[in-house]
Every structure is written in C-alpha cells, then in structure tokens.
C-alpha cells in the first residue's frame, strides 16, 4: 500500500487516491488503490471527473517523483 494518498476515491468512497506511474516512468496518474479507477491529474480525481477508460499497468510513485511532478501539494499525509 502506498504511503502517500491524496484523498478519498470519489467513485467507490473506500479507496485512497494515490500517485502511480507507468513502469517506463513516462507517465504519471492518480489511481484509487481499491477500485483502481485512474485519472490524469489530482484535480480531475478530486472533483470526480470521468475516470480514464484505458487503464495501464503501474507502480507506486516515490515521494521524490511526486514532488518532481508538481503534485506534492496534494498529498494529505505528509
């Protein structure tokens, strides 16, 4: 389980929104760790936008990668 989460998932209301990356590290997404819905940015996830229809294999992003992506401000449990 990822240590860093953004908010409660707007879809299932059970999972946590976490930052993940594709395995080649070329793209970052926000993902629910329970229903695994994915969004392109924290803003879209938080406001409950339509999740991405094409889901990709991912791994958890590190804190450094989240900071480099400019999303560190969204992390709640720092």
């Amino acid at each position, binding site marked *: 389980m990822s240590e860093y989460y953004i908010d409660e998932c707007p879809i*299932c209301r059970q*999972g946590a929104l976490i930052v993940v990356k594709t395995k080649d590290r070329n793209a970052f997404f926000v993902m629910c760790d*329970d229903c695994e*819905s994915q969004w392109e940015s924290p803003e879209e996830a938080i406001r409950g936008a*339509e*999740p991405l229809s094409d889901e990709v*294999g991912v791994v*958890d992003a590190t804190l450094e990668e989240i900071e480099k992506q400019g999303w560190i401000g969204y992390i709640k449990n720092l």
Partner: protein
Amino acid sequence: MSDVKDIAESVATRLDDNFNEILFEWSYGLLGDREQYQASTARDIHAFENTVQSGIDKVQRIGDAIEREDYQAVGGELFDPAVSVGVFLGTRGKGLPGPDKNIPGLDWSKLSRRTGGDAAQHVTRNHGSLNLNKPNQGVFYSDAVETTNDAWRIAKTENIQPLTVGNRDIYVVPRANSGYAGGAGGQLQNFDYVTLITEKGTNRVVTSFPTGSTPPLPKSYDFPLLQEVKQ
C-alpha cells in the same frame, strides 16, 4: 406352498402385464379359493385403484398449489411434505428450484494493474481484515470471496441494476450482516449491504466491500435538479 411360489414367480416374470390381473392371481394363489375371494379381491382391487387415484389427484392438487405459490394450501394437502413435493417434481423431471443454476458466476480473474494479484487477493487484502491505515473501510465478517459471490447471486436473482460510472458498474446489494465499519473512522457498525464493483458491462470483479445503507453516491453522479417554477 409350491403353488404360491409358482404364482409369485409367474407374477415376477409378468410385471409388464395388466396390474389388475397380477393382483388377482396373487390374491387367488395365496387364498386358494377363486370363487370365494374373487369378489373380495375385486373389491380390493377397486379400493386399491381408488386409493391410487386419490394419490394421483392429491399430487396434482399439490402441484397446482406449488405453481401458484399457495404454500398454505400445499401444507394442507400434505402429510409428508418433502416426500410428496419430491414425488411431484420428480414425476415431471424437475429438481428443486434454485436461483444459482442459470446464474453465471463472478469472474475473479482480473489482475490488479498495480499489484498483479487477482481480484480475490485484492478484495481479501483490502476488505478481509481491519486496516486502521484506511480512513473508511468496510470489513467482511466472513470470507470476502464467498460473501461477494453470494451477493452477486442475490443481485442477479433480484435483478438489481448497477450504477455505471466511467468503466465501472457499481452494484449495491442488500445482504444482512455482511460486515462492519472498520478503518480508522469506523465505529464497528454492522453493515447490511455489499457494494460490488465490476468492469462495466461484465462480471469481472474489480473490488467488493460491505457497506451500510446506500453509500455516498460518486461525486460525478448527475443529480437531477428541481426545476424552478417560471412566473
């Protein structure tokens, strides 16, 4: 004695013949006086036929009551309910009614794009035991997979339709005592629903967890607004 034995053998080899004749011969052979017992045998046969017909009629009445789901009437007809119902169903080539036989089960093969585990591992890990790191968490009382399968059966039997959000179908299935409110914020309240999430339009499980009454709807749900009355 040999006559009785011969008659019994004869009866045994002619089981396909007319039943009345067999019964008559059996009665005559045992009692030994054709004329004296012919009348009583005939009465016995007639009484037996009446009893058989009564049984046939009774089974028909039971069957009719079952088909119209009048179980009070069924109870009134029966001396041995299980046997009589079984005879009725059996004579019509039917088995016990069961909602499971024609309901396709859940597909648990979806692999997590993050962890690589299948859906059963995912549901069990996330909702099979208490995790205080989660702010909100539905936790199953018993086996997460079995409970979810049962919820799916209920959903299909009762034709519960899902709420579709993005590429997820969300089923909220009433199922008493499915779990409790866990996580850091949960107060161990009993949960009487199972929320089951599948890939849209499929039976492939994404996740499943117990919930209270209807959980909060997704933020993106399009709530219909009350139209203002134009002056």
